[in-house]
């Protein structure tokens, strides 16, 4: 477990210094842990666990948009779990449940837990439809069609800089819509 967390910290440091592949690997690595914790939190609150993917996506968006609050000299896991706990509490509160979130939900996940096939979530999709057309097109091109920023720029006759701006704005407004729904 210790090793796993050191690896996360290293990956996040590389990500912040510009390594996109390290960032991708990090997010892939933390997702099963977040998913297991979200399921446990939902189960304990008496909620159907099939909503866990919405919570996982909420957490991932928050991790992405709040990266600047991580102190690069500190371990990554406590920061990650603090955000995850916050998002899980939010999600349960929104469902009007009494909240029992245990720190150990996050810390105790065993590394061997079976990684599940990626699951779809409904809430991000619903909010995606409410975004301005340009942001939605760019997000869908990169997410669904797996196009690169360069290909997306060519497809919509935009500059790469404009694609990057639309991508980031799209992710930010998506998160704001999820928060304020």
């Amino acid at each position: 477990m210790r090793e796993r967390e050191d690896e996360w910290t290293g990956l996040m440091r590389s990500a912040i210094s510009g390594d996109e592949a390290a960032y991708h690997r990090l997010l892939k690595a933390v997702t099963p842990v977040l998913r297991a914790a979200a399921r446990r939190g939902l189960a304990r609150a008496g909620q159907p666990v099939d909503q866990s993917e919405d919570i996982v996506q909420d957490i991932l968006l928050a991790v992405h948009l709040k990266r600047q609050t991580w102190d690069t000299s500190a371990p990554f896991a406590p920061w990650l779990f603090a955000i995850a706990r916050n998002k899980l509490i939010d999600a349960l509160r929104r469902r009007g449940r009494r909240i029992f979130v245990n720190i150990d939900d996050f810390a105790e996940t065993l590394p061997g837990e079976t990684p599940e096939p990626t699951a779809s979530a409904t809430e991000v999709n619903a909010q995606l439809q409410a975004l301005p057309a340009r942001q939605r097109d760019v997000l869908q091109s990169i997410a669904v069609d797996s196009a690169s920023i360069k290909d997306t720029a060519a497809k919509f006759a935009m500059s790469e800089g404009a694609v990057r701006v639309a991508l980031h704005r799209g992710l930010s407004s998506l998160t704001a819509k999820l928060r304020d729904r």
Partner: protein
Amino acid sequence: MDTDQLIRTLAADNAYRARPVGFALMLALLAAAPVSLLIFFAELGVRPDVTTAMRNPFFDLKFAVTLALAASAIAVSLHLSRPEASLRGFGWWLLIPAGILVAAISGEMMMPQRTPMMTRLIGKNSMACMTAIPAMSLPLLVGALYGLRQGAPARPAVVGAVAGLLSAGLAATVYASHCTDDSPLFVATWYTLATAIVASVGALMGKRALRY
């Protein structure tokens, strides 16, 4: 969008660099400060005898208290903007201005005074103090909350209240140059009340504005 697709999208946005919270807070306060100063110079202005007043240590102590409040509240608000942070080990920072105030009150008590204690405490400017500090704080509070939105606080209402302390500390620093009541008893009563009002407003606003 399934989670793998979301992850791919987030990774594509890896090049984006958000402003650090401290930098965002500084920019927002610099943008808000002219509004507060405009209120000050339009409605109040520096007291006419300011050069004589500067020789009075109790006049100077007002600035020590308000600046200590602003500085410690800035430090605490930045600390609490990290998701895993708590007040533990950091809350005592906020006691520094209170400590200076207590020391100033005991200092004044030990000196011979021409006016009775209650007269010094009630002063002449209590109403001005109670309206001017909150009025000048408001633009700064809005600015501070805007800057702190870059953060990810576990308890948004607490950080909102600290943002209130921060803006009241800055506003009171400017207001202190107008106010002719220099007794630490006056400061401890009316400045503290005005600051408490701003902190409560900050908690209410922060609860919504600082959720992430």
